């Protein structure tokens, strides 16, 4: 009986310590979010004079003003468009390339892969000038349609290296017999990629999606360089309207940021359940026998 009690106590203590640890870290994470929403509900005069987390009078109209003033809704929709297109394109392009690097043989395979890897490691802060000159030469900066294209392709490039690397890491882990089984079934190389490799790499797809979605959503330097018309701008531009050279309208800025954070959170919630998957029957079969 004694051993039984000690065992339960031990388990309970460990469990509480773990939970206390988790809760402390969570508090540190949630605090800025609460502060952000709290600031969004204050007025410009009380932003720094009222030191409480949430003000007594909640100014919900700040969200409305942020949405309407300076056409925030337009930039929001633009961002949704850019994010969707860029993320889909990156998932396809980088997984195809990573699959080839991982599973197919052709001369120069390693060279190209290391080229992508090196790009990830060598940042080029000065490249924006050359980039803009090239895009201007190819007329991808004028009008209303082509700049979108130029911007989308520029963003695809930004996320390409890392996505290829992540996919390759996952594809490398697929056991060979799975691939042989699929080939025996009659799949072409593309078929293996689409039907076998991609479903297994769902966690990798999830990570790539959330990473690139976040990058595109928060991007604005390239947008500012490439897009010339206001109607094409992503929502970071909308937030800039609240950040003057000398004066920042904090409540509106925080409202804008809160509104902009919600879609990304939804993407994350949707995507993270693919990262945390139950072991499916297929892979369990492979690992077990």
């Amino acid at each position, binding site marked *: 009986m004694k051993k039984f009690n000690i065992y339960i106590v031990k388990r309970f203590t460990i469990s509480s310590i773990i939970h206390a640890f988790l809760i402390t870290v969570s508090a540190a994470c949630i605090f800025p979010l609460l502060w952000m929403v709290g600031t969004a509900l204050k007025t410009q005069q009380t932003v720094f004079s009222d030191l409480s987390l949430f003000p007594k009078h909640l100014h919900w109209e700040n969200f409305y003003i942020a949405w309407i003033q300076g056409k925030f809704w337009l930039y929001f929709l633009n961002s949704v468009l850019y994010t969707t297109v860029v993320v889909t394109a990156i998932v396809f392009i980088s997984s*195809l390339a990573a699959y*080839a690097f991982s599973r197919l043989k052709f001369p120069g395979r390693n060279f190209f892969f290391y080229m992508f890897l090196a790009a990830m*490691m060598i940042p080029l802060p*000065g*490249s924006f000038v050359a980039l803009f000159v090239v895009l201007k030469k190819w007329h991808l900066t004028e009008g209303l349609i082509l700049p979108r294209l130029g911007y989308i392709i520029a963003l695809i490039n930004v996320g390409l290296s890392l996505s290829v690397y992540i996919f390759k890491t996952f594809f490398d882990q697929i056991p060979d017999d799975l691939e042989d089984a699929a080939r025996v079934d009659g799949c072409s190389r593309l078929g293996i990629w689409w039907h076998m490799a991609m479903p297994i790499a769902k966690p990798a797809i999830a990570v790539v999606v959330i990473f690139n979605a976040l990058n595109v959503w928060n991007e604005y330097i390239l947008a500012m360089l490439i897009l010339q018309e206001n109607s094409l701008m992503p929502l970071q531009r909308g937030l800039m309207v609240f950040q003057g050279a000398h004066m920042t309208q904090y409540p509106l800025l925080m409202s804008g940021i809160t509104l902009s*954070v919600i879609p*990304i959170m939804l993407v994350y919630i949707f995507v993270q359940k693919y990262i945390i998957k139950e072991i499916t029957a297929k892979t369990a079969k492979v690992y077990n026998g």
Partner: protein
Amino acid sequence: MDYIKKTRYITFNYLFIFPAVAIFSLFYIYPFIKVIHLSLSQWDGIAFKPSAFVGLLNFKNILFNDTANWWASMGQAGYITLWALTFQNILALLLALACDRAIKAGAIYRFIFFIPPILSEVVVGLVWWWIYDGNWGLLNQWLTSAGFAHLAHNWLSPSLEEGSRLMVRMLPLTCIAIVHCWKGFGWAFIILLAGLQNIPRNLYEAAKVDGADAWEVFWRITFPIMMPVMILVVILTILGAMQGFVLILAMTNGGPYYYTEVPVTRILDSMRNGHFGFACAQSLIFGMILLILSFSQFKLSRKMQKA
């Protein structure tokens, strides 16, 4: 016949990588070549042609004649990276291990831990400035109300009167390193968790049956299988920490004195002051160092995996 089939087979393989390589060549390779050309010249960023071709002079100046505080900034970025590799990643690993079990609130925790990466740098900079502020900041308020008033400092720009030279030198940078870790651990957490999920459960059960305790389970089962994912996280951490600069611009602007400068802020400075060619040379040297760091990680991991 076989030969033609083989060529067709290989060409089809190239099609897989064609879109990626095409986009990459236009948007990275071409500017890269331009940057190399500019690093060998002197250019103010405005004239249509570089004003002079100076060969390796820019590189010589950076390596042997450091007037732009380059290596100090490199060391400071390295310090932040060290914090990220230890504090941030160990924290993320512990959290991932904790959430790996089927806890009821698992989904909520996974969501909460990802909030810092989602928040924009503007918010992060503002909130943490408010926490660190020496006059009315939250950290000092909490310390005082908890009875530790003597620990209250001017976190982001302490003066010599408050403590030793070492403290004045390292405290701002350490505070920024902590913010960086706070913002970054969500990424490491999610990737490590994804990796942990890939470990088959029956291995754990077998180990339990064999009577292994938590340490042995970790070192014998978890660690070896997680190796590639851990290497991925380490490389990403190094790259992210060394290249970070928005936080620094938002909180200290490289100050006080040069104590929180990092390579990217130095490069931006050179660009702004009309030394664009010099800035390109700095970027290339920076890239080479990151390349060497990451590739050595790679090779190290291969060796460890073989062992």
